[in-house]
């Protein structure tokens, strides 16, 4: 078993880490104040190549296997989580469906401009009445001639306000339930496609999510992604793949919080010595580090399985569940180590504490991950 990354991947990992620390972090205040990722920062991310993270080389992306991709996601986890959220919604759930299911023509049409960040992507399955119960969606895509007529409402859709392209899951045969759904590539400038209210969220500022409303929008039949009526199964695959990436990103965020915790514990003095001298503080740091190590080992294993061509439904859920729950524990301890400062807006830990909470909810809640894991044991 070889845990060494190839030298070029190690080099990219470092480049992303440097970018997170030196370029993104100094702008965190601005992102928090404006709830936007500044345009020049998005452009810098595009110049670095982050938008091409999961796109093959022939379409202008990096052409990485899963282990390498996740190594970069872990590095991205060190960045402001709203910023990281924009990139990962694009590169993960927004892109992988098209990469794995797209026809040559579809890939040529969209991927090159997605790789440069000119077109930002997203993925839409969730609806106001259908969250965890994703097989129960109502958004309808009715075939009429050479178009699908799309109507319905999606909500909480990451990147919707800035996206050029969404992969939308809709019902194409209402009599067939989960076997009557399809994935469509929906360009946001299509007449009848509209972004509704932008969500006011607890955290991850700068990563905008919103309602997306379809009012008889005509989507060319050429934009059907993957098999007709096979959309639900494919959506689950997209989400499964994304879960490994989330586990990696959570690992990076934890590692970042450990760095902050160590730095604070070394410099903050009480009772005449650094609080790092107190075993209670040392134990918090040790427990945080255990969560980093186990989460990292888990994503590495599952990403490796993906690269072996193995199906990882249960394992991806285990990795996501473990890493995101661990991140919450780690963030809580990071606040505790910082004391009152950990509760203050001008210290970064407060922001991480809010931002990380989302990871236990989206792309399948922790409970849904457990349902998947238990099902694999009992079926």
């Amino acid at each position, binding site marked *: 078993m070889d845990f060494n990354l190839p*030298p*070029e991947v*190690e*080099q*990219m990992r470092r*480049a*992303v880490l*440097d*970018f997170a620390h030196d370029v993104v972090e100094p702008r965190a205040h601005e992102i928090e104040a404006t709830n936007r990722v500044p345009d020049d920062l998005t452009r810098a991310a595009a*110049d*670095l*190549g*982050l938008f*091409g*993270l999961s796109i093959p*080389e022939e379409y*202008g*992306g*990096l*052409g990485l296997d899963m282990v390498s991709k996740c190594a*970069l996601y872990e590095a991205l986890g060190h960045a402001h989580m709203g910023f990281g959220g924009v990139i990962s919604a694009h590169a993960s759930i927004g892109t992988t469906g098209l990469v794995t299911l797209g026809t040559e023509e579809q890939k040529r049409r969209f991927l090159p401009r997605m790789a440069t960040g000119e077109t930002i992507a997203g993925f839409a399955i969730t609806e106001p009445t259908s969250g965890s119960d994703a097989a129960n969606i109502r958004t309808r895509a009715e075939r009429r001639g050479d178009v699908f007529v799309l109507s319905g409402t999606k909500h909480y859709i990451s990147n919707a306000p800035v996206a050029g392209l969404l992969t939308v899951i809709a019902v194409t045969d209402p009599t067939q339930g989960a076997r009557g759904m399809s994935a469509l590539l929906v360009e946001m400038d299509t007449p009848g496609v509209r972004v509704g209210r932008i969500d006011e969220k607890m955290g991850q500022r700068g990563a905008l999510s919103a309602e997306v409303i379809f009012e008889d929008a005509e989507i060319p039949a050429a934009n059907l992604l993957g098999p007709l009526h096979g959309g639900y199964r494919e959506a689950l695959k997209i989400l499964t793949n994304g879960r490994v990436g989330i586990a990696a990103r959570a690992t990076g965020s934890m590692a970042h919080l450990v760095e902050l915790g160590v730095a604070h514990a070394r*410099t903050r*003095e009480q009772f005449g010595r*650094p609080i790092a001298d107190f075993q209670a503080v040392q134990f918090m740091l040790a427990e945080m580090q255990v969560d980093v190590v186990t989460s990292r080992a888990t994503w590495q294993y599952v990403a490796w399985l993906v690269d072996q061509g193995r199906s990882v439904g249960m394992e991806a859920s285990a990795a996501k569940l473990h890493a995101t729950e661990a991140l919450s524990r780690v963030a809580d301890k990071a606040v505790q180590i910082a004391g009152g400062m950990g509760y203050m807006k001008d210290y970064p830990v407060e922001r991480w504490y809010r931002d990380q909470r989302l990871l236990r909810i989206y792309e399948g809640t922790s409970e849904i991950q457990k349902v998947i894991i238990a099902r694999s044991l009992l079926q």
Partner: protein
Amino acid sequence: MKILTLIRQVPDAEARVRVTNGAVDLEGATLVMDGMDEYGVEQALRLREGGADAEIVALAVGPRRNEDALRTALAMGADRAVHVETDAVLDPISLSKVVARIAQTEGIDLVLVGGQQADWDSQALGAATAERLGWPQLTWTNGLQVQDGALTGRHDVDEGNETFTATLPAVVTTQQGLNEPRYPTLPNIMKAKKKELRKDTLDQYGVTPLVRVVGAEIQARARMNRVIDGKDPQAAAAQLLELLRNEAKVIA
């Protein structure tokens, strides 16, 4: 035209280093390309982007880990790399023998090297290389162009600056202010993977170090960890001024 740009590797400014058995132990430290050498790589790229028809060769002489710095140069845009792999520690005069030989065998027109080697601090490598080759040497360059086989450039000093011209081939040492080195992008890091990285051994150059390092010590400086309470900004500023003036003595 062929440009040779020399790469050294140094610990990251924030790296923690230790001394074990009288030598600096870099195990686990983050190593990066010497900033001075980065200016050289960047300037080579700019000369090419400015219209010079140039092939850019990056050279490192040192241990295996130097490969990382060479890959950075390739990812920035150098065309190929030569790595003379050795664990021997070479003094600048010995090292200049390798550099000069490679400049000759590769048919190099311009050698770019950091003005002040962060690892030896001798400022001798550029000069010794130029001496061996019998080429002009231009030091501490802040501006550099190539036109019709001639170099023009600028050298800043405290009191002003000088401009110069010289014919190629030449050795140029770089310094801060020459340019703003680019970050390697992720796609370029991937592309660099396919570029040639040639491995030579030190034996091929018949060089043995003239100077032997027998010991090293690191000066340890403890932080005072003094934090000024910022609740009253006026008082905090006054206290900071007072400390800078009377304790750190960095302002008058």
